[in-house]
């Protein structure tokens, strides 16, 4: 194991923690809007960290490009779908959670 391996491992574990946090939020947060917030925000960062961790290990720039493309697509889809779900929920009259 050299430095880059340690760095990858660190990034992957950090990414995993973000996913864990996002999932925890999905399960524990009180309403749809906060759950969406937890899910999309944490997972996007988590995936970014994982992509970075894997990119360090990649053999060629082409692989790095593919990894970045995956991240970009997930960001795009996640952001749009989160908006669509929230919008739909709002239109159906689901109230925001207030303490």
């Amino acid at each position, binding site marked *: 194991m050299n430095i880059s391996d340690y760095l990858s491992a660190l990034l992957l574990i950090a990414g995993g923690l973000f996913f864990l946090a996002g999932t925890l939020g999905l399960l524990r947060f009180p309403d749809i809007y906060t759950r969406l917030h937890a899910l999309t925000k944490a997972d996007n960062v988590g995936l970014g960290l994982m992509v970075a961790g894997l990119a360090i290990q990649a053999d060629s720039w082409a692989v790095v490009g593919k990894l970045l493309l995956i991240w970009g*697509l997930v960001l*795009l*889809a996640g952001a*749009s779908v989160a*908006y*669509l779900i929230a*919008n739909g929920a709002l239109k159906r009259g689901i109230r925001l959670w207030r303490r």
Partner: protein
Amino acid sequence: MLFDALLGLLLLGLAWLLLSCRDLFKAIVLFVAFGLLMAIVWVRLDAPDVALAEVAIGAGLTGALLMSALAKLPVDNPPGRYSNEKTHWLLPLTLALMLLLVASGLGYALWSLPVIAPGLSGEVAANLEQSGVSNPVTAVLLNFRGYDTLLEIVVLLLALLGVWSLNSLDATPATAEKPANLVLDTLMRLLVPLLILVAAYLLWAGANSPGGAFQAGAVLAAAGVLLLLAGWRLPTALAGLPLRLALVAGPVAFITLAALTLLNARLLELPVEHAGMLILLLETFAMFSIGVTLAALFLGQRPQERGGSA
């Protein structure tokens, strides 16, 4: 091995959950999750082509179809109407015991199989040179067992014929247009060209690495589904013969090739020197038709034709 065992248990657990949970919506979501987990298993079993097909068709499009069918069910139908309310406890128990017996018998039969069995791997490897492609799965699908594939894309078209004939009995018109949504619209504009590009890549790559007409067709269909969800509809001028031509292009290309090979007295025998080219050509038509057919299956209703005879 430990990971495999965990994955196996997870699969069994998910299968049980999705088949027994009261809420059907939840069951469908679990089914999609089950499909994604299956895809991981396929990768574990060195079957990346199957993983692609599973994600795109088995989990993705089937999930979309299930959701849209659930939405069409009558509302007064309690979504979670559960089985065991009417039946006595004895029936499930007897059935469970019988199935346990059958499953153990099957398990024993599998257990007694020899540990090493080459199957047809030797034959595939020996004939791969002559097949025109270097991805063995594509070679089996389009050349060694190409006749199966011919019938299989006909099955897909048949499903659409069946769905259209069923829906033609229905008097209610197609669902009203959804209002345009800026975000969805932008997403669609970005993704649809990308999806088409990915489909073309999958088709091209299928010759020597995982991919092929079915996976590519499913990606193409995803673009179509996205368009449909964004409220886009096929122009009525294209909904008649042009659409039907698009749907049958794949099967017709296959049938034509089969008829042409008959002139050489052997059904579907591809000349070695042109096999690669012919397979790519076949796959292109097949991908196109599969994409259109899958998207049409998602829409369900036959698109409105010009002249109003829908």
